[in-house]
């Protein structure tokens, strides 16, 4: 049993990182929230929120995003777990290189995924080019990039490495002897995965599920550059904010258009 003094000491040790986080994240977020409910005339008002939620395009974008977040989280978890399992436990020559390759994918700016997908599946991309060359048809069969399925593909491509990375780290600390014992006792691979590997991976996996679902919902920069989806809220936040807050070409602070615009950005982002 931990003594009362020990618990107090534990809390004191937890304070410094929390204080740093409060200063660099909680305080700024609070300012944004405060700004979003303070109209130009002064006072407090929820009108900006009413305006945002009244707009049809915002609500439909919200539905699409929730749908996409659920779909891509499920896809990333299943795909990431399967791929990490093979890399860690069915080793093949070059497996380490593949693991490194996954790391590099993390440094991929997300809009580059969209660019690469455009090169491959775009209207004049590789896949359609190959198809028209082979069949002589005027245009290829791949048109899914402008639909939500294209966004789903981009998000799964972008976020699966985020799932694999911690899983591989967790797997690397799993004692191989446990697997050997289980298998020498007659357990089949599926059972070993279920009874030995999955419990070990569950903390990492659960954390990842939460993290990737929220980031799928939020980091839509992959879908931002995808044609036809320019209007989703994170994209709007980004472009408007850059215009009104650009440090290099900032308009005079007193200009009403810039302050009201930044206010609407805050609102859209928080409503997000």
């Amino acid at each position, binding site marked *: 049993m931990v003594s009362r003094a020990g618990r107090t000491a534990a*809390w004191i040790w*937890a304070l410094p990182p*929390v204080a*740093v*986080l409060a200063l*660099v*994240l909680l305080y*700024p*977020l609070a*300012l*944004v929230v405060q700004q979003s409910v303070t109209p130009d005339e002064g006072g407090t008002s929820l009108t900006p929120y009413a305006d945002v939620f009244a707009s049809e395009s915002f609500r439909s974008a919200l539905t699409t995003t929730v749908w996409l977040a659920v779909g891509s989280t499920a896809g990333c978890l299943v795909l990431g777990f399967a791929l990490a399992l*093979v890399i*860690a436990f*069915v080793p093949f020559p070059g497996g380490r290189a593949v693991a*490194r*390759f996954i*790391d*590099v994918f*993390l*440094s*991929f*700016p*997300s*809009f*580059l995924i969209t660019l*690469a997908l455009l*090169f*491959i599946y775009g209207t*004049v991309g*590789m896949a359609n*080019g*190959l198809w028209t060359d082979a069949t002589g048809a005027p245009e290829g069969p791949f048109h899914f990039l402008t639909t939500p399925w294209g966004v789903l593909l981009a998000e799964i491509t972008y976020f*699966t490495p985020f799932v694999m*990375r*911690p899983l*591989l*780290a*967790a797997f690397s*600390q799993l004692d*191989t002897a446990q*697997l050997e014992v289980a*298998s020498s006792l007659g357990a089949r*691979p599926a059972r*070993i995965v279920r009874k030995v590997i999955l419990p070990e991976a569950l*903390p990492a996996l659960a*954390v*990842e599920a939460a*993290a990737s679902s929220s980031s799928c919902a*939020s980091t839509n*920069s992959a879908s931002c550059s995808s044609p036809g989806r320019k209007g989703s809220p*994170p994209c709007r*936040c*980004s472009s408007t*904010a*850059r215009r009104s*807050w*650009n*440090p290099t070409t900032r308009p005079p602070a007193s200009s009403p258009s810039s302050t009201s615009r930044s206010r609407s*950005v*805050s609102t859209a982002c928080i409503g997000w």
Partner: protein
Amino acid sequence: MLVHSRAGKWATWAVFLLLFVPLFAVPLLVLVAASFTTNWSGAFPSGPTTEHYAAATSGDSLQALTTSLVTALCASLLALTIGSWAAVAAASLRKRGRRLLDALFMLPVAVPSVVVGLAVLVAFSRPPVLLNGTRWIVILAHTVLVTAFAYQSVSAAIVRLDPMYEQAAASLGARPGYVLWRIKLPLLLPSLTAAAGLCFALSMGELSATMMLYPPDWTPLPVQIFAATDRGSLFTGAAVAVVLMGATLLVLLGVSRIRTRASYR
């Protein structure tokens, strides 16, 4: 280890390749191919050239690369310190406190990075702390964004840590600081290096918050790539992206050399 029969192994590898190649290898290869071409209008690229790389490794791009490396290094070290400190501290709290810390440190991921960028911009463009227009605001935003990942990987590893080792050390008279330094941290080292690599890679590729914050004399590489592709010079953008990934890969290889007996594979 998991699959013993030869046929089973080959089947597993085949499925792996079938998923891995189209989803991850092909997009990357396409970018690499694009960085070497002058023209891509049909099924395959044409007009091989290396001049995009000449542009990507000189002048502005070279400076942007240094900027990105310095930013990512500072941000990941800071995030690793804060994140693992919080994770270690959270592990010694009871359930409620741990939940609270988990929620707090999950916040930077739960909040869209654009919003984090905006919030940092709003908060540090006014007194008492004026950082807008300096490089520190970029480093600060990157630190905030990657801290969550450091915290998560370290706290996931702490949960899996066998408490027997610490208890044995403590029962032999080791003080808490000594247990932390000689037992916990060495056992956590694989996760710490993994977290450092993850933070570094994330910071190297961060665009959406950076776009709002960067001062003209501190332009990270992703911004450079975005500007290039936005202008329509797709192939130069692809070359700069390949340089970015190469640099990240080199650093990650260096980080992964740090290994201890705590990892089996």
